[in-house]
């Protein structure tokens, strides 16, 4: 077997986008390299530039400057060629309303130059695989949100794209459909499908992605595996305290007096404290709270999440 030095399946170099009329860069000198076989996550709050980034890579958004290659094809210079290697699942339902579920798949195959007979059998096979066979001849209007999403995923991988782009794939799905979709994506990835996923659900990025780029204001603030990102905060415990009294004083005192506290911030009716390696933590927190004249009503601890990473990086929350 010969090993060929392959370039990453997605490469961007100093990629920028300034929308017409905007006075800021929606994507700001982005350098990205996604390897074949990864599930790569773009995690960021509203307006971070995730959709814009995916849009440039899928030829829908025209970059202002910089370069981007997908599967070795320059998407700016050869958009039509690049599209042979892209699979796209957008946030809204873009299924063809005038076709049945099966026809949606079949004509997608034909659109990508797959012959009639192979398109027919692959449509059958994908419906089977995504447990949609029962719905093959249903109108797409009859589908629930979760099912429509599954059909869109089936359609997007029909032509075996080099990269599957998914923009907020589980936004608006109920928890059960979300879990089902996660399973589908993991299975696809296990077969080698490269996936670029944008999301503002930290659990989604945490659960699914091999590597996550945390984005804000068009820039990547940190990029690593979820474990490394969480470890990089140095925090190992998040204490959430619901209390009455002067919360400003409370948060200040906790930060000063609890050993290992790195970060404290006000939340709804309480304080969130980030702590690194403290002993006897809870007793200490309660003592300090009462010394500050606050009454503790509820206390909980959690491990750091990607949210913690984001707060540490930007001082603000991921979800607003």
């Amino acid at each position, binding site marked *: 077997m010969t090993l060929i030095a392959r370039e990453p399946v997605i490469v961007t170099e100093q990629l920028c986008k300034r929308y017409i009329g905007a006075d800021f860069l929606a994507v700001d000198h982005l350098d990205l390299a996604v390897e074949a076989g990864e599930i790569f996550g773009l995690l960021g709050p509203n307006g971070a530039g995730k959709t814009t980034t995916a849009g440039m890579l*899928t030829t829908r958004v025209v970059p202002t400057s910089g370069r981007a290659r997908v599967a070795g094809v320059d998407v700016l210079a050869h958009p*039509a060629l690049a599209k042979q290697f892209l699979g796209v699942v957008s946030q809204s339902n873009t299924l063809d309303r005038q076709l049945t579920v099966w026809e949606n798949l079949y004509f997608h195959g034909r659109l990508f130059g797959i012959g009639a007979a192979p398109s027919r059998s692959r449509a059958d096979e994908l419906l089977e695989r995504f447990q949609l066979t029962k719905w093959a001849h249903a109108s797409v209007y009859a589908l629930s949100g979760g099912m429509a999403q599954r059909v869109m995923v089936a359609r997007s991988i029909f032509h075996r794209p080099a990269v599957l782009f998914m923009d907020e794939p589980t936004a608006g799905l109920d928890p059960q459909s979300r879990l089902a979709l996660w399973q589908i994506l993991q299975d696809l990835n296990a077969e080698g499908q490269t996936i670029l996923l944008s999301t503002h659900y930290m659990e989604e990025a945490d659960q699914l992605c091999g590597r996550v780029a945390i984005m804000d204001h068009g820039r990547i603030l940190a990029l690593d595996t979820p474990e490394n990102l969480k470890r990089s905060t140095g925090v190992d415990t998040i204490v959430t305290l619901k209390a009455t009294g002067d919360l400003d004083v409370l948060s200040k005192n906790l930060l000063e007096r609890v050993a290992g506290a790195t970060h404290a911030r006000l939340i709804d009716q309480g304080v969130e404290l980030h702590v690194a390696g403290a002993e006897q933590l809870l007793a200490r927190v309660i003592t300090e709270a009462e010394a500050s004249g606050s009454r503790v009503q509820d206390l909980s601890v959690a491990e750091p999440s990607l949210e913690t990473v984001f707060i540490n990086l930007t001082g603000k929350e991921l979800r607003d």
Partner: protein
Amino acid sequence: MSHGTHAIDTRHARSTLAASRSALGALLLRDVTVLRKDVKLFVLRTVIQPFLLCFVFLFVFPKIGQSVGAGSGQSAFATVLVAGVVGISIMFQGVQSVALQMSQEFGFTREIEDRVQAPCPIWLVALEKVISGAIQGMVSAAIVLPIAALVHARGVHANIHVHWLVMLTLVPLACVAMGSLGLVLGTSFEPRNIGLMFGFIILPITFLGGTYYQWDRLAPVKIGSWHWLQTVVLVNPLLYVNEGMRAAFTNVAHIHLYVVYPVLVAFCAGFLSLGLRNFRRRVLS
């Protein structure tokens, strides 16, 4: 990383030309499939307007003694109208199959977002809609002509003379021009503004497009020596379609073909470039 089951080799890419050709074929095939699903609806919506026009003007009017077509008689009017009815059907097909569809797909269902991921240049996706609309226009012309020629009161008679060469060239040209008009309208109007489109564009075009009269008959409408109406309606693309249909199907007077052909070609070019530019703007950001 080695993933045998899912190896992608971009060296196996098809040329963009080949990929575009099969994409175009698939898009057309899709439209034919959709059309076949409700072929009845297609026929009905194609037939209804021409039928009503002929019924009212060529059947009811003569029966009740209402006269149209000053002096020259019902049959002469029928001859004029038949060609106009074919022309107007071609236009409505362009509006219906291209403009309404596209406006929906852009604004409402966002299907277009997926379709432009087809492995071809995006202008081809728009052009396919025009081609598909033009084909539907030709089919409707073929359905409508016999109706227009047959629905009339006894004694009224449309003088149909088919000029084959003119018909075989001008009908497709008119269909492409009206499909392109549909592209311009469909990429300009949001679904919620479709009412505006009908009120301010479609209605004036149909009423001032020479469907019910020949262009040279407008000469008496003038201010001083200026034939203002004759001049104003020259901007109307439907006028050339209708006059062209008169040249193709009748022996009555019409705007000279040396004018009709180039003007229709120019409208095609203008509408196509405007429509494709709109389309590109709506799709790319």
